[in-house]
């Protein structure tokens, strides 16, 4: 539910952020810190404007992979969550493995994926799926699981079949959960894409970051970070909007 609420809730974080940015600007200006050590907020914005075309080009590559990976993750999460919900064996076997699999550091296996699948879009998408699939799937499974037993009895007593119980009860019940999983996944997806691009590739914001960092053009690197932050916030906002549409009864 972050970044939702009434407009009043926007004021405080924005004011605090504004103050922090202001201090950052002051420190950099007063101490005369060079750009290759720490660019100021103004430098960052300037870099964003001057290199906008380049950043936009890389951003599109990143977004393309992210959204594709995200969509795949959602689809896969649904398939697996439904399988786990329908068959106890599947859940008992897979659920613990899923949890443990999250302790594997993604960053360590990305080079492997690149070795196996090359520098194209495929390893990037795999990384995104690896990171995004989990929160979505777990939120769904838990959502299906937490349906009150009395509701299940109600559905049995009005002779609902499995599909009806799923469609009218479990699925809508899991919707609230699903969106908190989606929000986590949405922030992961850009991060995952960038991790993939960082380790090799020809385009994407991760590539742009590595290049600008190597050229000590930290202002440009910061500009791309700013873009990622803004896009992430926009995504969460969008998901919140969709969530309040879907769960309008709340």
């Amino acid at each position: 539910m972050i970044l939702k609420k009434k407009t009043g809730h926007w004021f405080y974080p924005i004011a605090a952020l504004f103050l922090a940015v202001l201090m950052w600007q002051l420190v950099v200006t007063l101490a005369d810190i060079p750009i290759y050590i720490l660019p100021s907020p103004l430098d960052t914005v300037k870099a964003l404007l001057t290199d906008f075309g380049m950043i936009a080009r890389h951003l599109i590559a990143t977004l393309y992979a992210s959204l594709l990976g995200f969509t795949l993750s959602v689809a896969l999460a649904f398939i697996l969550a439904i399988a786990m919900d329908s068959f106890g064996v599947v859940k008992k076997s897979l659920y613990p493995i899923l949890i443990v699999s999250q302790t594997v550091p993604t960053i360590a296996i990305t080079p492997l994926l690149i070795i196996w699948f090359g520098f194209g879009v495929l390893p990037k998408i795999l990384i995104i799926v690896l990171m995004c699939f989990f929160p979505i799937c777990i939120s769904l499974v838990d959502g299906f699981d937490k349906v009150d037993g009395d509701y299940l009895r109600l559905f049995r007593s009005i002779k609902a079949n499995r599909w009806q119980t799923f469609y009218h009860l479990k699925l809508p019940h899991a919707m609230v959960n699903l969106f908190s999983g989606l929000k986590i996944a949405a922030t992961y997806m850009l991060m995952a894409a960038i991790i993939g691009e960082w380790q090799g590739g020809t385009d994407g914001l991760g590539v742009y970051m590595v290049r600008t960092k190597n050229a000590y053009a930290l202002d440009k690197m910061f500009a791309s970070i700013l873009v990622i932050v803004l896009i992430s916030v926009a995504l969460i906002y969008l998901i919140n909007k969709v969530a309040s549409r879907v769960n309008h009864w709340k």
Partner: protein
Amino acid sequence: MYALQQAKAGHAGAKEEVIRLDRIGKRFDGSEVLRDISLHLRKGEFVSLLGPSGSGKSTILNIMTGLEEADTGTVSIGGQIGYMQQKDLLLPWKTVIDNIALPLDLKGRNKKESRALAESLIDRVGLRGYEHRYPGEMSGGMKQRASFLRTLIASGEIMLLDEPFGALDSMTKSSMQQWLLEVQEAFGLTILFITHDIEEAILLSDRVYVLSSRPGTIKEELGVDFGVGDKRSRLVDPKLLKMKERIRSLL
């Protein structure tokens, strides 16, 4: 004098039995919850099950509806049962009218016709104007009535009501009780009603079964033999107090 009077039962007619439990026993994880429960309902009767918490009242209804299996004994049901569980169990993401029509939707009935049927009954439960609201916007009593109507739509003429008014304040409760009696009459319902509340059981019922605490056994079966024609008159009848005392001493 309050013990079951066959003559009184005869008044409900030599009407056919629609539910009969015979020597039902039930254990959960080895601990005995129900012992030797025998009871019956005749068509058109209003019967209450009165018992302390944990005496197995809800379990009896679960056995009648097939949600639980009895360990021993036999269950015979003659008719389609609607079961209103202890909680209102409305789906918060469906509007009132969609909640009420849910059982028909699940039977694959035509959506429009189901809505029309639900619409036609909505006045009976006093929910006109709330059809398209969500349960979250309604009071406890309104939700109970919506839940009741959903049960009614799903059922034939037999309704099992598990503490339908348990969560209500006393004012709402008494108007709901009157309302229930009216609905029973209008639809010719057979009702098995669970309650903790001795007075409520006496005010509404033709007969009352009193359950002992765990393991639940039938302690007593009482016919309510006053205010038979007009149950509302029971409230001011001195026999009410006597009967309350009698039941209290049983519990």
